[in-house]
């Protein structure tokens, strides 16, 4: 029997692993750390290939919005910067988040609290399926189906709201604009944000929901006082996850946003771009020096999305831990 003032010191028990197990554990650990190796290698190689760009342009590579290779024979005449592309990444991703989050909240609440039981399982499966639709298909759909619609809406927005700077344009010709790309990204990230929100809302404490019902609360009252406050941080995490996806999206943005090297805050104007679509766009005919700049741009994109995803993971995990 163990007592607090026992004179006998507790024995430490060591698990003994046979040689087979030690080899096995070492092998598994080594394989598990593959992801660490890959992440480090990505950073290292992109830095290695793009290092010349960072030393040539320094911080200007991130702030400068010009992309001019100058004389292909003489790299010193080139002026390369991804400022406009970074702004474009942020603008399109933010449009996506602002549009997607309210709809994702409503969809998550609908699936979790309003849909009949049989529909709930079906809708969860559908959510997984639409999350797996390849981005190239979203892109072609956005280009062919969404583009004319958004052109139409842009005209209306411009007509009535052009006194708001972001809805103003120099010439009222609308096309592959940040608004189109942002809306398409909203549709693309909606499943993942909804999935995260649904999972978090589903874990809202049953006893508190019961308490709200027992006090004569309606379903909405219970959602408002219990579910939404409880799911707040999980929703933020889900939105960040979506933000990361939206910033890293390549093909869909490539197809729906006109690549122009100009910092453009007018979301109806047919000009913009993001870092990922820049890489896909310039890769084909890039000079050796330009290729290095694309590597550097890739590194910047990698670090930004890693940061966003890091924050998202921390927030989502913390909201899971509370449960």
């Amino acid at each position, binding site marked *: 029997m163990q007592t607090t003032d026992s004179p006998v010191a507790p024995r430490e028990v060591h698990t003994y692993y046979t040689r087979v197990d030690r080899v096995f554990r070492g092998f598994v650990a080594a394989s598990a750390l593959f*992801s660490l190796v890959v992440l480090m290698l990505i950073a290292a190689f992109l830095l290695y290939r793009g290092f010349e760009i960072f030393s040539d342009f320094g911080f200007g590579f991130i702030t400068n919005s010009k992309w001019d290779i100058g004389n292909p024979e003489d790299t010193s005449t080139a002026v390369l910067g991804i400022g406009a592309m970074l702004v474009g990444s942020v603008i399109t991703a933010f449009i996506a988040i602002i549009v997607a989050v309210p709809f994702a909240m*409503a969809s998550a609440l609908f699936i979790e609290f309003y849909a009949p039981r049989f529909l709930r399982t079906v809708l969860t499966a559908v959510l997984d399926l639409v999350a797996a639709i390849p981005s190239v*298909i979203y892109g072609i*759909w956005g280009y062919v189906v969404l583009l004319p619609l958004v052109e139409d809406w842009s005209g209306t927005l411009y007509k009535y709201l052009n006194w708001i700077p972001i809805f103003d344009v120099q010439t009222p010709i609308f096309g592959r604009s940040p608004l189109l790309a942002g809306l398409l990204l909203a549709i693309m990230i909606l499943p993942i944000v909804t999935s995260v929100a649904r999972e978090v809302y589903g874990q809202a404490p049953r006893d508190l929901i019961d308490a709200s019902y027992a006090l004569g609360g309606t379903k909405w009252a219970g959602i408002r006082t219990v579910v939404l406050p409880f799911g707040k941080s999980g929703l933020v995490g889900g939105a960040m996850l979506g933000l990361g996806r939206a910033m*890293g999206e390549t093909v869909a943005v490539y197809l729906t946003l006109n690549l122009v090297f100009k910092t453009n805050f007018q979301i109806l104007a047919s000009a913009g771009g993001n870092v990922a679509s820049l890489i*896909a766009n310039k890769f084909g005919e890039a000079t050796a020096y330009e290729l290095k700049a694309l590597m550097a741009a890739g590194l910047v994109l*990698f670090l930004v999305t890693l940061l966003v995803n890091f924050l998202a993971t921390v927030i989502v995990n913390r909201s899971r831990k509370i449960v």
Partner: protein
Amino acid sequence: MTTYETSTVVPAPRRPWDHTRSTAVRVAVLVFLSGIFSSVINGLTGLSGFLGWYLGLAFALPVIAFVGSVRHGWNLASDRIATALITVAFAAVTIPWVSIFVTVYQKGSKAFHAKYLTDDMRITPSSDLIQYGGVAHAIIGTLIMVLIASLIAVPLGILAAVYIVEIKGRFAKLVRFLTQAMSGVPSIVAGLFIYATVVVFFGGFSAWAGALSLVILMLPTVARTSEEILKIVPDDLRTASYALGATQARTTFRVVLPTVASGLVTAAVLGIARVVGETAPLILTASYFVAKSTSLTEPIASLPIYIFSSLGLGDDNATTRAWGGSLVLLGVVFILFAIARTISTRLSRK
């Protein structure tokens, strides 16, 4: 003094709280009125088409729900408005989904002809008439690259899950965290990385390089799903195996993994579904080739790049080909999901 006896006659169970016919009538009237109201709005303003009508409905439904219930107090009225808004918003979300599936099917099926799935584009330019050429080369290329990627990513993903769940090693938390971080790597960055290493060192685009870029994107999905699957293995099973004197290695390979074998297949299938439509990394690694090819060291076609490159031409026939490729690709994703779903429901029934 009272003693209660249970009567032998049991009445039929009822659910008085279920939606009654009057609720159904109320909802039907509500939707009907909102529909009319929306048509009126559409007539008065410049709104048109299905989306314009839906927008009017989305506005009218909460308003009418409010008007119809406000006499019972704000408590009930707010509940009705919330129900209306949430339902309308969810229904709005499904519009693009339906549109995507319908458009891909309608436009994609126009590209189909008898030999669409067996011919390649070796002697057919993308702008040529639809009855020539096909997607066989792209299907073969996608299959080859996905197969190689799976052969690498599935074992690695499962081992990462084994490390977290079975070994519970010192770095378990780190590994889980890194896997999550890796799932956020933009696909174009994965492509750039493979380009900067494999393509540059080995002197050209190849199926190999394409497969390796897919590994980076596939691994996190496989690892995460496998982890969830391994967690459902009851601890009794491991304890029982240890009690019989088995090593941890034997316990893992002979007891734990076989128990959830079908779940691990699901993990693999979901991983494949995640990467089968990846476009951006393949532009930078595998590039494209118009003919059927099985060589691992040369550029190779794939379904996503077939779509992407056809679309870039702006020609009507080429665009139709892009839709055709989309239909094939969506079909593949669909089938993969159906497989994963069937396996996992069979697993949960066990």
